[in-house]
């Protein structure tokens, strides 16, 4: 049985698509057949972050409306044979998605794949609620910043009330917190909410902390999921997050300011 994971946040620009791409690639690298779906109809971007934007022929909406079958719309990742991408439509609007249509596509995919990663759009409109509706697990992406934390809290409330699991009185969605763009330097200076503060307010299990890193922009510039940048702190932090999701117990890294030498401190670096 496939496991469906939604990557959500409420607020835009916090790293949902970056996380979806990295997480899906990470699962595929561990040998799991994985598909990642872009739910942001009208503003698709997952294809760009995955580097397959020129290979989109059919999309999620085509499949829902019966204009193509799911096999025709799936894009096979060129780097990893276990990974497939289902792009969103760029020209339709979110009303093209329906709860039955999405359910049918997920059911078809569940026969083929072990993990289905749903990249949610920002907001709490139809695309976002449908992305989470069928989820078994949720990754709530949060920046250590007031509006992001508040929106995440709102999203956590919606996850526990407006999902298939909630409506059918099943065991609730497993929710995990992923803090992104974390800057230990700024936390130390008292300019940024500390990890403990974010956790205290949202009280979710922490699945990872992704440090602020130039490698994230580099990765999106080139269409390579940042998890493939093994040298970078962000790539390593995403890899740890995938391990934790799969049940490994790893300590969190990149939480403390790296010590600079005296010269480094005096002259910057």
């Amino acid at each position: 049985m496939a496991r469906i994971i939604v990557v959500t946040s409420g607020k835009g620009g916090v790293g949902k698509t970056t996380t979806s791409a990295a997480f899906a690639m990470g699962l595929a690298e561990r040998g799991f057949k994985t598909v990642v779906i872009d739910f942001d109809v009208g503003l698709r971007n997952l294809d760009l972050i995955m580097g397959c934007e020129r290979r989109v022929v059919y999309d999620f909406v085509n499949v829902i409306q019966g204009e193509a079958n799911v096999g025709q719309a799936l894009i096979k990742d060129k780097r990893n044979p276990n990974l497939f991408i289902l792009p969103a439509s760029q020209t339709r609007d979110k009303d093209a998605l329906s709860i039955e249509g999405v359910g049918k596509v997920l059911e078809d995919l569940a026969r083929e794949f072990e993990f289905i990663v749903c990249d949610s759009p920002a907001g709490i409109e139809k695309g976002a609620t449908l992305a989470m509706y069928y989820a078994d697990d949720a990754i709530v992406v949060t920046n250590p910043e007031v509006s992001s934390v508040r929106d995440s809290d709102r999203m956590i409330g919606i996850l526990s009330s407006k999902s298939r699991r909630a409506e059918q009185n099943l065991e609730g969605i497993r929710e995990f917190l992923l803090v992104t763009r974390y800057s230990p330097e700024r936390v130390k200076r008292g300019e940024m909410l500390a990890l403990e503060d974010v956790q205290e307010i949202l009280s979710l299990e922490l699945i990872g902390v992704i440090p602020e890193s130039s490698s994230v922009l580099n990765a999106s510039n080139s269409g390579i999921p940042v998890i493939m940048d093994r040298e970078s702190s962000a790539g390593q932090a995403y890899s740890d997050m995938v391990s934790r999701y799969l049940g490994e117990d790893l300590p969190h890294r990149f939480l403390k300011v790296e010590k600079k030498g005296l010269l480094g401190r005096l002259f910057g670096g």
Partner: protein
Amino acid sequence: MALLDYFRQRKTAGSAAIAKERLQILVAHDRRGDGPSYLPQLQHDILKVIRKYVAVDNDAVSVNVERDGGQEILELNIVLPD
């Protein structure tokens, strides 16, 4: 410049503490605000009934819904005059 920053950073009072305090209040409020939409009307009606018998202030009745895991608790607080 880095030398200057090194001494300067000690003085800047962090805004993170303010952020945390504001968030705690806001999030608690947002969560309460999730209550059923009939609450204000319920509060109004209860006040009207009580006023048939006792003269009370507008803020004598408070109605709250709290969520604790799977259950909801409707809390009704009525302050009667001495």
